[in-house]
């Protein structure tokens, strides 16, 4: 088992955005030189599972342990996280029809985040080349892949159009598919997983002004397909779980937390573990020690 450790790069707000949307796009974080080398490698190894690339030091250090991508993974999965054991290449001759919506096999439904699905474009991917389509917030939307086969275009879909060297990190259970392509070409997309090996805690970049009580836990850029505010509740639960406080999650109901207070300084029903008395302090484990601050 290979593990890696590095400084976390995501802030409180970025971690929360990941909880809400279920993915994070890091555009152009791998150098052109490495992208070119990766493409050359994939020309020589056209397998759908070019696992051998994980034995290449240049690939491991510049892609799998890329400082920005690994820093984001470190933020979400904690220190000494597990490195990929499998490499897939979605190598597609285009034009090609859209793939069916699905969740990859092995997904577990819930708010715990113990593994991540990560994608790397060694080449630019335009809309016409059939980028991966992701449905924001769908990591909380229960369904089995075999019951998604008839779904087509979906409002709010995010198309991962991105320059070469982009890496996007997803909650494993997010709904996704290869979108339809319309131009002749060959598209490579590498896909791999990371795993959590340490308990969740709030050891990413803490923002001094982050307000647990009034943070925006709702998703705004896409429909949620569910009852009003359920997305907000799930995102808040996942965020608390990542903070190591999942067992203390609770909601009062109605317009209470995790909805933001509109009139008062603080909403009703904020879990007590997020507060310290009445002074609105946050008291959570941070970098292995207890902190109390405004």
């Amino acid at each position, binding site marked *: 088992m290979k593990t890696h450790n590095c400084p976390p790069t995501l802030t409180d707000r970025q971690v929360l955005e990941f909880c809400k949307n279920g993915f994070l796009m890091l555009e152009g974080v791998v150098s052109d030189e490495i992208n070119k080398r990766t493409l050359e490698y994939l020309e020589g190894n056209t397998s759908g599972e070019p696992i051998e690339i994980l034995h290449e030091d240049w690939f491991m250090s510049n892609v799998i342990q890329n400082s920005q991508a690994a820093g984001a993974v470190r933020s979400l999965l904690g220190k000494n996280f597990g490195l990929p054991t499998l490499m897939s290449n979605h190598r597609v001759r285009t034009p090609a029809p859209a793939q069916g919506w699905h969740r990859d096999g092995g997904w577990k439904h819930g708010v715990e985040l113990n593994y991540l699905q990560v994608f790397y474009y060694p080449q630019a991917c335009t809309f016409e080349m059939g980028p991966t389509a992701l449905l924001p917030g769908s990591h909380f*939307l229960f369904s089995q892949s075999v019951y998604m086969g008839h*779904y*087509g275009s979906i*409002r709010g879909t995010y198309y991962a159009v991105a320059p070469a060297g982009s890496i996007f990190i997803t909650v494993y259970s997010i709904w996704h598919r290869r*979108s339809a392509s319309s131009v002749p070409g060959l598209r490579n997309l590498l896909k791999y997983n990371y795993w959590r090996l340490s308990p969740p805690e709030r050891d990413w970049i803490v923002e001094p002004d982050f307000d647990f009580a009034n943070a925006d836990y709702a998703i705004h850029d896409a429909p949620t397909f*569910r009852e009003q505010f359920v997305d907000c509740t799930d995102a808040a639960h996942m965020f608390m779980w990542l903070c190591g406080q999942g067992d203390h999650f609770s909601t009062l109901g109605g317009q209470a937390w995790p909805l933001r207070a509109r009139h008062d300084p603080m909403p009703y029903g904020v879990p007590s573990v997020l507060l310290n008395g009445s002074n609105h302090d946050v008291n959570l484990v941070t970098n292995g020690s207890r902190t109390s601050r405004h």
Partner: protein
Amino acid sequence: MTTLKEELQTCLEAFRRGELTEAHLRRALDSAEKAGDNGNGHRTQDLLYLQANSTSLGATVLGMAMLRDGQLSDGPADPQLWPYVTVLDAIRDGWRVIHFPNMALMMDESRTYGLGCEFILEK
């Protein structure tokens, strides 16, 4: 191409004049047989899947896919270009509902099954 409706209208007018013949009726019969023919001698059902944000026929469509003339289509990627904004729009365009959102799937409040409230329509 003469439609079945036009052929029947011709038959009706010939009947009123007392000139209806077997040939008129045979042409109407031929039109009836060709109605819905997809060119291969088969009648093909068109299907329209619409996922909406509630069970109301006036609810906004959140997702779509269709089977038209035997061809599967996801519809345009851009929702602004979808043919119907609501389920009611599709009904007004001649689609008939053959499946309403399954209320039995709402019995477990802890989980949401699939993509909103799904209507299936046919032509």
